[in-house]
């Protein structure tokens, strides 16, 4: 009896097995394999060792995109965590119209990166956007030209990204704060701990795991960053906002440079592993420490 029904379960999972093995493992192996060949428009079976990787890391564009994604990633994840936590703490203070505030802070998260990128491209438009409006108020020297400024374009992306993603952190942090038992608040009041100190010393440490999860989620998004760049700056000005995912896409479909693109994609996968592995390890140790008790 048990055997027969378990067979149905196995059967039901068959399509997913197919996807996991063929799509996830198979195509990845194929791509990684391609990265060691001299493929250009079409796949080639001439293996060139790490030549594509060497080429990749001597490409100014790739190195620029790595640097960009690092700056963007740190500021975007940090910005989302900070703003999200502050918003959550503010909403946690028994304020009026809490749900209206929450709705407003989260709505950008429902929108696509393309839409987000286009909105901020327009807001930051140097001739007709915020800059023009502020100047017409009399502040003639006001400058907000981030999207067209080589040195600042990456921060325009950060601004748009934080605007879109801070709400997610807020939701997670607020859920965590609501999960903290009321008696801890009472105990802290009896101890005479100021409110800000309660958030910093008592609540923040307890939200650690949830915020780490949110941070990891955002970091994964950073590695995949593509749409928002295409929509907002298309990598410019110059290489100022080039990112690895876009570099790969350009070489895959625009420049027909298969070997280089797959080498880039492989590096990206390694990047993901480098982000996820420590987190998973920490989770694992954490649950083991718990299990030991």
């Amino acid at each position: 009896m048990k055997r027969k029904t378990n067979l149905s379960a196995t059967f039901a999972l068959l399509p997913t097995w197919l996807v996991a093995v063929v799509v996830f493992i198979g195509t990845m192996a194929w791509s990684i394999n391609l990265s060691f060949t001299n493929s250009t428009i079409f796949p080639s079976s001439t293996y060139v060792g790490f030549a594509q990787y060497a080429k990749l890391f001597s490409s100014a564009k790739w190195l620029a995109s790595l640097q960009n994604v690092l700056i963007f990633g740190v500021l975007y994840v940090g910005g989302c965590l900070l703003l999200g936590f502050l918003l959550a703490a503010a909403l946690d203070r028994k304020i009026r119209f809490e749900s209206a505030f929450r709705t407003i802070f989260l709505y950008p998260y429902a929108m696509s990166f393309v839409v987000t990128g286009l909105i901020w491209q327009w807001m930051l438009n140097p001739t007709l956007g915020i800059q023009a409006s502020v100047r017409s108020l009399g502040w003639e020297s006001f400058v907000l030209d981030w999207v067209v400024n080589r040195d600042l374009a990456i921060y325009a992306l950060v601004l748009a990204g934080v605007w879109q993603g801070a709400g997610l952190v807020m939701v997670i942090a607020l859920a965590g704060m609501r999960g903290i038992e009321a008696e801890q608040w009472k105990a802290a009041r009896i101890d005479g701990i100021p409110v800000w100190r309660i958030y910093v010393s008592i609540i923040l440490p307890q939200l650690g795991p949830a915020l780490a999860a949110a941070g990891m989620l955002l970091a994964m998004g950073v590695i995949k960053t593509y749409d928002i760049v295409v929509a907002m700056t298309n990598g410019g000005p110059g290489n100022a906002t080039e990112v690895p995912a876009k570099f790969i896409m350009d070489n895959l479909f625009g420049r027909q440079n298969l070997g280089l693109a797959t080498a880039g994609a492989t590096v990206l996968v390694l990047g993901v592993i480098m982000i996820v592995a420590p987190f998973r390890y920490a989770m694992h140790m954490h649950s083991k420490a718990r299990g030991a008790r």
Partner: protein
Amino acid sequence: MQSAVSIKDLKIAYGDNTVIEKMSLDIAPKEFLVLLGPSGCGKSTLLNAIAGLQDITSGEIWISDKNVTWEEPKDRGIGMVFQSYALYPRMSVRKNLSFGLRVAGLPKAEIEARVARTAALLHLDKLLDRRPAELSGGQRQRVAIGRALVRQVDVFLFDEPLSNLDAKLRNELRVEIKKLHQSLGNTMIYVTHDQVEALTLADRIAIMRDGVIQQLASPSEIYHRPANLFVAGFIGAPAMNFIEGRIETANGSPTFQSNELSFDLSGYGFKTPPVSGQATLGFRPDHLVLDGAASGLPTIPGRISVVEPMGSEAVLWFDWAKQTLSLRLMGDVTLLPGDALSPGLDISKASLFGADGSRL
């Protein structure tokens, strides 16, 4: 005489919903007062109001002869222990104990001395560097008590501190709290719904119901002379037996009559001279004597339905006039269900309640 905690005309209401109605209560220095009642009776609300964690509607709260009605909790001179322990989970025991003192800016040496003294008192010395998650329930609660102790205040508030513990630990910690009170001599206000805790710990018990104190008296007074039917029914396990009937004063000395029974009430300590009317007779299972005939007491003839042996004692449940009554006796029992019995009742130990439920 001065009092440690004094509550004057306290009222707490949420809109139309009144939780505490015009309550006044004086607690003497060094007294151990237990607030006892079923859940929702307002006992925790009252304790939180004393702590300053609960907004009040009207009235005043005085602690150590100072009006603290508008004071912040930290300035009231109180320490509090919670049901869920409420330890700060990411801090070690040492930090949990010292956090409030550090925020208050006490000198380091003073903090260390206080923590060391408290840890020694509560046997926490070896646990100081552990985190709450690495402690057992009983250890956690000792840390929570320690956190109240380091504040070196006159009044301690306990909000159901033992409810989250298993029965064995509960008994152990109960004894420890009692010892603590005896050695420290602080005023303690202790909220519980557990009557055993109340009876064992308290100097005085305030039994609450629907935001009103039903009786404020010593454990023995509350057990033996409950002020009304609610108190009588709430305290004691198995619960007090109740028989509905009438008091008749027509034939000179008062009697209680129910079905074919008639008890002479001349041995009962009436608060006011008795009058004829509806009444309820209450008596505890341990106030029945198994062999009624030999004792010379008035008897209640019945038939045993269930026998519950409990080791050193046993409870007999017997049927009388479509009611099930209980009787407690010490030692082993040889009686079986179905056996007839005729226990005697000592009227002087019983309680009589009038039609309004209050003690006669």
